[in-house]
């Protein structure tokens, strides 16, 4: 196991990049802790797969270094990096039995037969495949095959890191719960460094200790799920995390009050004057419909999603979503929306501004 250091790392698929726009991955410096569970989250084309491929050794970065512990592995082959990887689609050796599939990485490294047997049994029990060990992998369902892939990823104890490339894409929603919990449990038990690439915020947030949100080849924020939810560093994070994402309203910030088209909104902190574009961001979870308190809202639609309601409306010409509890009646007397002051974030040119004491 090892700490992973990305030092001045950048990558371009062009041989002679002319400028920043040619880089799929913009220069970054990061240190990922040994034993941490990290998720790389972003939409397609944001650079997350490029970054994963650089860590796995499939791609050689155009500049910068990758370190596992103290060892520079930038030029090392995948097989020398001592990593495990689980792919988007199940990769199993069809002609082998489930047991041989799980044992394969250990046998290739010349491990002791007794150890292999014990370890394979242990992993099989953990992924719930112990009853099927002697079946051929060919003909199993996609779910079962992906479990084997996960198991093969876990089977070696000494790996530097385990990489997951959207591993739950082909899995049914119900099975996702089971596999995700298993992954989490395995992480807790073995303490491997894990890196999990996904576009699905629920997967990223629930899996990782630290979520790395990527946008346009850049890491826009790295933080705990709570950080990303409560204090998105960039409006993109606000939009991308949460369902629906954060509401953003253009506002003038004066001290501890924001003015949305002249209407005052109290803030939880005091801010220095902002030059350029200023906005306030508020999660739908922290917005409440009222009968006159707050900003006037025009309600367009009410969606019942079971455990809560999503009210889609408009405030000062900008769409605003409000989350209301299950079973709450939404009627025409609800004409205004109020925001919880200390949950409001302030953005200057899309980047979050830290406030002072109110």
């Amino acid at each position, binding site marked *: 196991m090892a700490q992973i250091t990305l030092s001045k790392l950048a990558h371009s698929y062009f041989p002679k990049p002319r400028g920043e726009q040619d880089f799929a991955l913009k220069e970054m410096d990061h240190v990922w802790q040994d034993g941490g569970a990290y998720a790389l989250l972003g939409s397609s084309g944001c650079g997350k797969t490029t970054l994963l491929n650089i860590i796995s050794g499939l791609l050689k970065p155009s500049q910068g270094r990758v370190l596992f512990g103290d060892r520079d592995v930038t030029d090392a082959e995948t097989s020398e990096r001592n990593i495990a990887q689980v*792919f988007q689609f199940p990769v199993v050796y069809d002609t082998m039995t489930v047991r041989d599939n799980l044992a394969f990485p250990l046998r290739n490294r010349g491990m002791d037969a007794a150890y292999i047997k014990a370890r394979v049994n242990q992993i099989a029990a953990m992924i719930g495949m112990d009853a099927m060990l002697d079946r051929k992998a*060919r003909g199993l369902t996609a779910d079962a095959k992906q479990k084997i892939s996960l198991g093969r990823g876990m089977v070696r104890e000494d790996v530097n890191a385990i990489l997951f490339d959207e591993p739950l894409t082909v899995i049914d929603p119900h099975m996702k719960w089971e596999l995700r919990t298993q992954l989490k449990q395995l992480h807790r038990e073995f303490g491997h460094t894990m890196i999990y690439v996904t576009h699905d915020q629920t997967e990223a947030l629930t899996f990782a200790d630290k979520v790395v949100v990527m946008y346009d080849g850049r890491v826009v924020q790295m933080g705990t799920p709570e950080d990303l939810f409560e204090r998105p560093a960039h409006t993109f994070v606000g939009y991308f995390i949460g369902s629906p994402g954060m509401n953003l309203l253009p506002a003038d910030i004066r001290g501890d009050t924001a003015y949305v088209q002249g209407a005052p909104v109290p803030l939880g902190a005091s801010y220095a004057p902002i030059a350029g574009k200023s906005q306030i961001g508020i999660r739908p979870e922290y917005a409440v419909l009222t009968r006159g308190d707050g900003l006037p809202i025009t309600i367009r639609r009410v969606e019942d999603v079971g455990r809560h309601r999503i009210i889609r409306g408009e405030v000062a010409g900008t769409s605003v979503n409000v989350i209301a509890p299950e079973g709450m009646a939404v009627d025409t007397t609800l004409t205004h929306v109020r925001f919880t002051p200390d949950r409001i974030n302030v953005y200057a040119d899309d980047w979050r501004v830290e406030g002072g004491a109110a």
Partner: protein
Amino acid sequence: MDKTQNNKAWFLVLPVLVIVAFSAIIPLMTVVNYSVNDTFGNNEFFLVGLEWFEEMVTSSRLHEALGRQILFSAIILAIEVPLGIYIALNMPKKGFWASVCLVLMSLPLLIPFNVVGTIWQIFGRVDIGLLGHYLSKIGIDYNYTNDPLDAWITVIVMDVWHWTSLVALLCYAGLQSIPNAYYQAARVDQASRWSVFRYIELPKMAGVLLIAILLRFMDSFMIYTEPFVVTGGGPGNSTTFLSIDLVKMAIGQFDLGPAAAFSLMYFLVILLVSWVFYTVMTNLDKEEGK
């Protein structure tokens, strides 16, 4: 349950049935007719029953031709299949050179059979052929018109030259369908080159490989043109394969009855082998989809 709705479909199949009847079944019946009759010309036939079949089954001439035929097919399969796989594995996967390779590999397949025969016939001649001339110049006693072994080597090398590309191209197509993730996974698992071949490439190629073997077996088992052009079945009878023998019998000696019996048995052997291959292949598919 769908059939009640789809009776119309039979009308659509009808033209095919008619064509097959005229192109295959009726000519085949003529052959069957010849195989159980004897004739002395003038369109006079009299029934001889299975006599010709008995004669053919016990004929040492046919046995020898069959032995040569099996040996020939076995040798060319033993060379072309591994060689084809080897070439496919080492072809570039994409880019300019992949296209160049594909074109070069396809060239022998595009040459008409008798031209292939003529090329090698001239190529191997000791007096004017490039190969024959230089082989004898460096002291190798090579002459396919005199020496049965040289004739065999020539015919086999010619077939390998002509048909290995087919095996290679089919395997190449099979290899192309393997997602990159498998190779990446193998690298992560530290699989050896052999393991990658044994557990990833070979299973994924198995289907097309079987088709390639079947095609090569049938073609080689029915081979006629190329060896006929090069050696004419000689020296002696050393390269007289089944087809060549059959033609000699039917056209050369005008023994229509035995030739008809011979060709029917020939046909049944090929049908049997194809059926075995088909069964193996569909079973393989079934396992795949289980």
